[in-house]
């Protein structure tokens, strides 16, 4: 690549190309630090079904840089955010261009299991660290796991194993699973298939629906007919929102307990109190968690963006903060960074977390949240306009929730 650029530098560039390239390259927050600048590339889905999560990640990254005032120790630090439209090939191209043109030192971001593998592949080939920030089973095991691969969001199976016992004890024994038809949905269901019987539940049925489904009416009669006690909604983003809205028209909420596998404040906002009231959901972050790190993050985020943050903002905020912390401590090269981060503990936006040494998988608590009505929001939810949920149960992180290192083939 050096050779290429040396040649390229000698030649005059297209006026357009240069102009745009320069304009695009300068999103660095200024700093007067003297060390080598550190650049973090954030590849996330700003368009598509999960646009709200991508926007949150962008906000989280920028908030972190703002708090750091563009400095990590004596290194100037900056982020470059790119949209992957949740398409793996586009994610790959964006990651590549960040590595080759912008010369980023770290990669992070992702809202879909489909893009995270692509971004990680570029990071692995380029030999730079990647911190995955979305749920997937791929990053912490071969063939995708690498010496500088980190996964700071939970495995779907971790969340499943954390919440299934609670669901079976508190909501009902017959569970119907409605899952998105791509890797993430299948990973959820693989774990659920094992966990449900072990926790005393029976599976009333399962349906896989394509990512981006907007008309759910053909799916609903079958759900009604199966008559489960609990409906597990495995979709996220717009799919979750449109499903719950339509379920409301069919009055499903009154006939079965609805559990969202992934609760996010941005989805709740789109659905509104009418739809979310009385539903349950799982999340690894909620803005009312009583933790000093979380509350600082929530306060700063509210100040910057006018509303409380969602979990996906916290992931990328954490990623940037973790990188900054290690860089400030002098762990700048990929191998130094990875050695220092593996096996470490930290308490940032999501409360206390640890990163397992063998597979670089993060362990964090899971929260079960219940939807409140508009009237309860201020008193029980902490805010009249954003108090959609109250935390009904905190399930601490545990090694048992995830496959062990030897099961993964890593020692």
């Amino acid at each position, binding site marked *: 690549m050096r050779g290429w650029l040396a040649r390229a530098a000698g030649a005059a560039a297209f006026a357009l190309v240069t102009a745009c390239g320069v304009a695009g390259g300068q999103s660095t927050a200024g700093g007067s630090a003297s060390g080598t600048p550190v650049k973090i590339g954030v590849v996330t889905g*700003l*368009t*598509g079904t999960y*646009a*709200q999560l991508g*926007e949150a990640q962008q906000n989280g990254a920028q908030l972190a840089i703002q708090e750091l005032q563009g400095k990590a120790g004596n290194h100037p630090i900056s982020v470059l955010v790119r949209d992957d439209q949740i398409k793996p090939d586009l994610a790959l191209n964006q990651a590549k261009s960040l590595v080759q043109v912008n010369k980023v030192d770290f990669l992070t971001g992702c809202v879909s299991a489909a893009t995270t593998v692509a971004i990680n592949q570029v990071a692995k080939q380029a030999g730079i660290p990647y911190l995955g920030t979305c749920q997937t089973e791929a990053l912490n095991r071969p063939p995708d796991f690498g010496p500088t691969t980190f996964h700071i969001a939970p495995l779907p199976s971790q969340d499943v194993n954390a919440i299934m016992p609670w669901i079976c004890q508190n909501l009902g024994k017959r569970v119907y699973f409605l899952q998105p*038809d791509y890797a993430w949905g299948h990973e959820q269901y693989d774990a659920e298939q094992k966990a449900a019987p072990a926790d005393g539940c029976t599976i009333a049925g399962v*349906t*896989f*629906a*394509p990512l*981006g489904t*907007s*008309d759910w*009416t*053909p*799916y*609903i*009669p*079958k759900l009604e*007919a199966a008559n489960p006690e609990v409906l597990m909604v495995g979709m996220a983003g*717009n799919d979750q*929102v*449109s499903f719950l*809205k*339509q379920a409301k*028209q*069919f*009055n499903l909420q009154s006939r079965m307990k609805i559990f969202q596998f992934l609760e996010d404040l941005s989805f709740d906002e*789109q*659905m*509104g109190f009418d739809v979310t009231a009385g539903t349950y959901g799982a999340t690894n972050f909620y803005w009312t968690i009583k933790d000093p790190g979380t509350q600082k993050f929530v306060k700063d985020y509210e100040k910057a963006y006018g509303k409380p943050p969602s979990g996906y903002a916290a992931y990328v905020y954490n990623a940037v903060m973790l990188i900054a912390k290690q860089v400030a401590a002098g762990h700048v090269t990929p191998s130094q960074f990875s050695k220092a981060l593996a096996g470490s503990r930290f308490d940032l936006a999501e409360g206390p977390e640890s990163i397992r040494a063998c597979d670089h998988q993060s362990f964090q608590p899971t929260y079960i949240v219940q939807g409140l009505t508009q009237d309860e929001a201020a008193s029980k939810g902490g805010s009249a306009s954003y108090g959609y949920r109250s935390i009904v149960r905190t399930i601490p992180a545990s090694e048992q929730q995830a496959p062990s290192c030897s099961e993964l083939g890593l020692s």
Partner: protein
Amino acid sequence: MHLIVNQVFTGVVSGAVLVLLALGLNLIFGFMEIINFSHGAFFMLGAYVGFYLLTAFGSFWWGLALVPPLLLLLGAAVERTLIKPLYRRSAVDPLLLTFGLTYIVTQLVEMVAGKQGETVNAPSQLNFQLPLGFTSYPAYLTFVAVLAALIVLGLWLLLERTSLGLIIRAGIRDSTMIQILGVDFDRFRVLVFALGIALAGVAGVLDSPVTGVYPEMGNDILITAFVVVVVGGMGSFWGAVLSGLVIGVLVSLTTLFASVYASIVPFVLMILVMTFRPRGLLGTT
């Protein structure tokens, strides 16, 4: 059995929206020999305009009432400025132009309204379960099916019982002949194009409480609407209606038995129809 009847009804409702889209495409194709690739974009635009009217006036009915005239005007403007210059060109050019137009409309909506999309509440008057004897069904969805049926009926009466309809039907059969007969063909082209766009807009408004509004909402449904037109027979009025309902019901039933195959059903049906009955279910030539 009960479940299947329910599922068929659901299919009819989603088919109804497809029928409205397909009829517009079909009119434009039959009369102007133009494949309007931007039909989905106008479907989406109609839904968004309806959403903004709902937000501004607080009532869904304003959107439903105002979107058709607004899109009628917009359709006429688009026809005059963009489609008219292509009258003498090959049939591919309008197809390509409207393809580019889709990008522009979708992107403009994204710039104004954001990428994320919004949810739309069904009108409060229809926010209940309608008892249908054997089952109950959301009143709004029933309303969609009934209104779509009325629109189809109205359109049919317009085509069959008015002198305007006579000219349109004649134009679909032989456009050269009616030009020779001295009909001001240009004026009717604007009208037919605008009418098709208005139909797409209504379909968008009707669909918005079901799916919400989002910038890409026109894309997938447009492809299915094309399939509906081809399967029904290009230029055939009742062909589009029949195939819209058939595809709606087939997709709905496939969802019941094997949901992952639902998305491919229209295309398989189209390949089969093209192979064994190339002129479409009710096509004439």
